[in-house]
């Protein structure tokens, strides 16, 4: 029972972590929270749902479709809502925050029009397959979700720490001006970051569909709020904070439901976060702000 719950918690936490990574990457380079990320994630889920449940294509193809759709939305978001504001010296970076809020409202309404307000079944072909190990039951879907999210986290960490482009992204996140002086085309780097973060949102969308078997046009908001809470909890802009924060939130939620008052699921998760922030205001992995820059 305990082990099963732990597996459930890590699976959920993995999804949370992927969502939170999307926020944290963009926060790193732009210094703002991309309020449209939750909605891009939701569109990823819908594209995945259409491909799997309606078109009946294999799951990997649905992932590719969701990634392509979410990445294109990220590109459009940057091109039309963020980049025009970057070119203006003196424009407050809050302007781009407002801009992403606008896009999120637009996308949410669009989803309502296209897909309606009801639940849509997300049928995973192998949703009944499970393994029995002693008294522990593990569903193949869970193993797949866990595998994919761990793979993405490991891949992102390696990319950021080992590759030329990953290092350039970290340099851009730490100091835009310095990165430019070192030869990084920071404008392109920001665009690339928004696209990568959105693509990860698309993956997370499909993972949520697989985990809960249904999606609707409100998952963007609810997942978005969790993602936000996680990056505040983990430390704004911190990649490892998003990963650890996601896993901790997933585990604490699952155990609250299993052993505590299920109705307090969200409340207790957020109480955990508030307690951590009272002790460490900069978040788990956050750096205390000393130089006025996030």
């Amino acid at each position, binding site marked *: 029972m305990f082990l099963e719950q732990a597996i459930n918690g890590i699976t959920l936490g993995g999804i949370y972590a992927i969502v939170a990574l999307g926020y944290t990457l963009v926060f790193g380079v732009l210094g703002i929270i991309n309020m449209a990320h939750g909605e891009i994630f939701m569109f990823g889920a819908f594209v995945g749902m259409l491909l799997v449940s309606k078109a009946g294509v294999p799951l990997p193809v649905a992932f590719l479709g969701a990634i392509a759709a979410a990445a294109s939305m990220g590109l459009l978001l940057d091109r039309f809502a963020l980049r025009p504001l970057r070119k203006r010296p003196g424009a407050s970076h809050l302007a781009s925050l407002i801009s992403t809020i606008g896009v999120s409202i637009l996308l949410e309404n669009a989803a309502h029009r296209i897909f309606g307000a009801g639940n849509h079944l997300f049928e995973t072909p192998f949703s009944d397959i499970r393994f029995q190990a002693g008294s522990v039951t593990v569903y193949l879907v869970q193993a797949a979700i866990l595998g994919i999210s761990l793979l993405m986290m490991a891949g992102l960490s390696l990319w950021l720490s080992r590759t030329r482009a990953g290092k350039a992204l970290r340099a851009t996140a730490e100091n835009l001006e310095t990165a*430019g002086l*070192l030869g990084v085309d920071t404008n392109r780097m920001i665009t690339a970051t928004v696209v990568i973060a959105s693509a990860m949102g698309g993956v997370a969308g499909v993972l949520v569909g697989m985990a809960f078997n249904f999606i609707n046009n409100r998952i963007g908001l609810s997942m978005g709020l969790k993602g936000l809470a996680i990056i505040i909890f983990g430390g704004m802009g911190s990649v490892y904070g998003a990963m650890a924060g996601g896993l901790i939130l997933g585990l604490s939620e699952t155990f609250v439901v299993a052993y505590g008052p299920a109705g307090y699921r969200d409340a207790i998760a957020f109480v955990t976060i508030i307690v951590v922030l009272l002790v460490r205001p900069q978040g788990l992995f956050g750096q205390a702000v000393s130089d006025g820059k996030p």
Partner: protein
Amino acid sequence: MLEVRDLETYYGNIKALKGVSIEVPEGAIVGILGANGAGKTTLLKTIAGVLAPRAGAIVFRGEDIAGLPSHRILARGVALVPEGRAILSRMTVRENLEMGAFIRRDAGIAADMERVLRRFPVLSGRLRQPGGSLSGGEQQMLAIARALLSSPKLLLLDEPTLGLAPLMVAEIFDIIREIHAAGTTVLLVEQNIRQAMKVSSRTYVMETGKIVMEGPSKDLLREPRIRAAYLGRE
């Protein structure tokens, strides 16, 4: 090599450069001095593309580079070591150096990295440390080493000795001489005026966004107005 003509740069509505013209011949060390707030940093940042000028020209090796973004200007061979060093403090010393060579694709990077580490031995023992954990002098070494790894033709140095102990100041000036001897042209902003005027062949004096005096450094060193305003009565 570099010719700046009638350059005007603004911060919002504040005019920080009011028509600055300077010339840096190939192979020279040229110095810029001036009181706090004179516009020295603004001038270097405009040349390096961090700030865009509102008027004037910056001609580098025959091409006007005014207003280009900084990564393009670096690609043409102009590197800036900014005031305050601008070390990437969360990245390791090695990663800082690797980022120095970011624009290069040639095969000589590894050899250059070794050469730089031999020249700056304090860095070679600290490659895995975060850049932010270095002392001020070490950070300045790192900033200069990092800029050199882009193989610049023109190196802009903004107060490289600021806040350093006398021994470290002497070391930095030795390094500047070596860089120059190795064929790199240098434009140097300094507050250590006497030493700066000794290494440079030509000096410009800035005041409130304008060049107010210029000439061969050894002549300016004897100039009574310079002695009174900047060198004190020694």
